[in-house]
């Protein structure tokens, strides 16, 4: 009975993460894609680096917020997790600066690869964090 209740709680934590964090973070990407579908060809790009940066930032900020609200967790783990999230936020900041430079100063395709890679890493880190939270709750 207790195990069943625990399993449901684990599912709830992950469902909330998926609904409130991942889907909301993906909103800008979906929106741009929908706009691209209904506009004339060439007027807008289907994917933009800013949207992926926004997605990564949403995930990382929610990580920090969630860690701050855990009461009974190892303090060194909380510190290292917060540190990792802060580092990734800094990387997102650098990539955002690169996207804002514009022109031919930076290769847009390379920036796109970089933001996609770092957004995926943020998604993986966030998933692992929420897996831990759901297991320990």
């Amino acid at each position, binding site marked *: 009975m207790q195990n069943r209740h625990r399993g449901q709680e684990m599912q709830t934590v992950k469902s909330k993460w998926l609904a409130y964090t991942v889907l909301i973070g993906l909103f800008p990407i979906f929106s741009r894609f929908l706009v691209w579908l209904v506009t004339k060809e060439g007027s807008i790009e289907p994917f933009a680096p800013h949207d992926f940066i926004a997605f990564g930032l949403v995930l990382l900020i929610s990580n920090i917020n969630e860690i701050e609200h855990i009461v009974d967790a190892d303090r060194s783990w909380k510190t290292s997790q917060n540190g990792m999230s802060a580092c990734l936020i800094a990387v997102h900041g650098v990539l955002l600066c690169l996207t804002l430079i514009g022109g031919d100063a930076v290769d847009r395709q390379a920036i796109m690869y970089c933001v996609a890679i770092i957004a995926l890493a943020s998604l993986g880190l966030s998933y692992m964090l929420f897996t831990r939270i759901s297991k*320990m709750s």
Partner: protein
Amino acid sequence: MTEILVASTVVIALVALGFGAWSLVQTHKEVQRQKERDHPE
């Protein structure tokens, strides 16, 4: 220059994922220890 940017991003991403995986392994060990404490044989 572009290669350096992409390569450093990949390294940072791998470090972050490695850290996450290490954290998961620690969690698994902690859960096992808790189970053993709760139900000693």
